[in-house]
């Protein structure tokens, strides 16, 4: 009797095991999505849930690494655990991983035919597209329309006008620029932005000459002008800006203590979050007195790439996700919830706030400069440009030393 019960239990166990194994074989594909944009983490969750409704057999796990995402990604690659879908910063990051062979060639995917052709530069390495460009971002002046109206000021289009605006604001005890000097990245963006704007059409040949080991930071431009802009920026910032990081900058701008901030448009979300009544506009930072030179420093920011080392089933599922991103349903969440400017042709962006409309109008009229810093070698931007700009502002290095270190760092990273 007893042995029969044991046998019965044993059978049940075996059948259960086999059953679950069969179930497991038909189990849906599980993808791992790695991303760094922490400001859209809740929205991405919503996107993934919506995608899951349309494709019930594909689930996507989100993994957010906001700080040092590149470092984390490199160590994941080194241990052979590449995520299936990877959010990558445009240009240098895509090129780095594509060059090492980690990314899948997406050139022939239909979804890449749906993005605006100009945005493909950011993901094209040796003639092949290795990622799907997702959003366009701009760096320029975000200004407070109410303050400008109060003092009868017009958004400046030339450097002369900008000087006049700053003088007028200072007279009325308003800080012209909310800035952050304690952390180096914003200053790095500023230096690269001014350099690119002043170089204008010469910037791409300059990058080529740098990559051939011959050029210098000082080549395409009048160095005097570049560093004068830094002096100008510092002179029109809060004297305490040396102690400010991003939070203080946003607070100062949102509270109306400062009328403008030189930032990426991604900061607008934080400012409007602190003060929903803010009316903002977005304009390029004018560096010369010729309105033709005043172009917005805008380019592709984030992209989605696929890992070449994933299994064929996962790659197929990941491609389905990329295709889905181009559907109106996905674009709607991307625009309305994530508040990011999509790269897809003919995407509807009418519901976005005024600064985004400004960005889109600059994009459509082609008045933009590429993000040259994304094309610098990593160390040349992260160390030489960012720290260099900061060291110049704090007076620990002069212009020549900053340029010399920049050239040296670029040359060093060419060797490998």
């Amino acid at each position, binding site marked *: 009797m007893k042995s029969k019960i044991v046998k019965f239990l044993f059978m049940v166990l075996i059948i259960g095991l086999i059953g679950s194994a069969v179930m497991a074989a038909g189990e849906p594909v599980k993808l791992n999505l790695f991303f760094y944009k922490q400001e859209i983490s809740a929205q991405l969750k919503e996107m993934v849930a919506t995608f899951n409704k349309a494709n019930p057999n594909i689930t996507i796990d989100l993994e957010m690494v906001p700080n040092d995402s590149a*470092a984390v990604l490199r160590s994941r690659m080194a241990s052979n655990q590449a995520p299936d879908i990877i959010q990558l910063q445009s240009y240098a990051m895509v090129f780095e991983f594509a060059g090492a062979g980690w990314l899948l060639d997406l050139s022939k995917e239909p979804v890449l035919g749906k993005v605006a052709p100009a945005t493909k530069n950011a993901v094209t390495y040796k003639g092949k597209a290795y990622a799907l460009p997702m959003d366009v971002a701009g760096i320029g002046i975000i200004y407070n329309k109410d303050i400008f109206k109060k003092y009868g000021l017009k958004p400046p289009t030339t450097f002369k006008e900008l000087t006049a605006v700053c003088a007028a604001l200072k007279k009325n005890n308003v800080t012209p620029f909310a800035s952050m000097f304690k952390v180096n990245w914003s200053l790095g963006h500023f230096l690269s932005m001014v350099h690119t704007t002043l170089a204008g059409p010469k910037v791409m040949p300059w990058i080529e000459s740098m990559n051939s080991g011959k050029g210098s930071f000082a080549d395409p431009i009048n160095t005097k002008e570049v560093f004068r802009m830094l002096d100008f920026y510092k002179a029109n910032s809060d004297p305490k800006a040396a*102690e400010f990081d991003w939070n203080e900058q946003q607070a100062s701008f949102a509270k109306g203590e400062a009328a403008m901030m030189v930032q990426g448009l991604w900061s607008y979300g934080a400012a409007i979050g602190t003060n929903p009544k803010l009316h903002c506009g977005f304009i390029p930072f004018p560096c010369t007195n010729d309105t033709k030179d005043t172009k917005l420093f805008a380019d592709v920011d984030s992209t989605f790439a696929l890992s070449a080392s994933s299994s064929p089933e996962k790659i197929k599922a990941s491609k389905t996700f990329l295709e889905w991103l181009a559907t109106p349903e996905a674009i709607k969440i991307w625009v309305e919830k994530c508040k990011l400017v999509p790269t897809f042709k003919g995407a509807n962006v009418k519901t976005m706030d005024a600064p985004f409309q400004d960005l889109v109008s600059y994009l459509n009229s082609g008045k933009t400069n590429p993000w040259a810093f994304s094309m610098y070698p990593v*160390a040349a931007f992260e160390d030489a440009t960012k720290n260099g700009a900061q060291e110049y502002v704090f007076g620990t290095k002069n212009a020549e030393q900053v340029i010399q270190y920049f050239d040296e760092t670029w040359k060093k990273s060419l060797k490998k």
Partner: protein
Amino acid sequence: MVSPKRNKIFYFILFMLPALILYGMFFIIPFFQGIRYSFTDWNGVVPEIPFNIDKTDFDNQIIKKLDNPKEQVYLKKYYRLSDAAETYNLTNWVQEKGGSRQLSAAERSKIKRILGSVGIASIKFIGMKNYQQMFQNDQRFVPRLEKRYLFNEFADLPQTIMAGDFHKNIVNHIRNSKDKSLILTAYQKQAGTSSFHLTPKMNEAQSEKLKTLLSQYWYTTIFIPGVIGFTLFFTLFNVIFSNLLALFLALVLDTQMKTKNILRSIFFFPNVLSLIIVAFIWSFVFRLVMPLITGITVWLGSPELAPYALLMVTVWQGCGWLMIIYLAGLQTIPTDIVEGSQIDGANWWQRLRHITMPLLIPSFTICTFFSLSNSLKTFDVIMALTQGGPGYVTTPIVLDIYYNAFRDNQFGYATAKAVFLCMVIMVVTGIQLYFMKKREVEL
């Protein structure tokens, strides 16, 4: 029964074996692997075996060079020509009945070995180059002298220049006699003062010329401590101040004070806090409280003050822990000796000098060792408070290593620096232990 000696040794080794294996696996092997990597150009990104190989490279560089036909076949089994017939792609996933599986470790290592035999490897041995670069070709790393320019060519011309400054920092630097005479005519010494004054008569071109000359020649030579210099500065002062403060607190709290238990907890408390919270509190203090107390508005953002601000935080955070060790040391001092000296008529200072201090030397040894090795390895507070900035002035070696590896993709180079740091720590703490141990008193 007495077991023979050999048997005893055998059982001892058997008993220790698991510990030895673990020690070897998790310490000895990684340690020597680290040293090995420090001689390579490992960049952390390039995969162990390439995913794609150019067709011409594959044919000429690999297949032609392989003598063994079996190896050729083996490689071709895993590298398939792409549709466009331009590259050979690694079939990372092998199709088998019942699904696909990733390449096994054995297959990978075999491919790696075959590719390595024709000189294709992701990591190359480069000898001492990393160590050379560290001391010869890294502006940020070693201390050095640098010119600090005192005049910015965009600024207005200064009306007066002090005589000492004028001679030492401008005139002495000029070799060209034409430039020298130009500056000497533009700035003339005024009778009765010790400064040189700008001559007012000057046209636009002349003043422009003068500005470029001044920006070119007006400089002083200053000492840039570099990463090594900052680490040593930080270590020296952190060891001195945190030990002094901890000893002082321990001596005070070892008396028969009523609130001593509460005070001990309060002084130890900073050590319990998470470092991120500490950084948050202090960045708040430096921004909002310190300006009110001291009148200096910029602390962490100032290249001059940031190192001292960091020192302050570290001493505040670390001294509680050292205080506990000193307190424990004080409590091991037998009361009979102290009472005996009291009866002999020793005053407080004499007791401290001749009884407490000598008996406290074991605690000194531990505390200095602890704070020395910790401040040489300091990372977290600085990462959280300044990220090594402004510029590079507060970057200790460990943070520099982190930047080299994870920001600049120079893992091999960063490993070389880490090996160097390891040597420094071993030498410094070794010397410290040798001298302190000699002075310890046995009761």
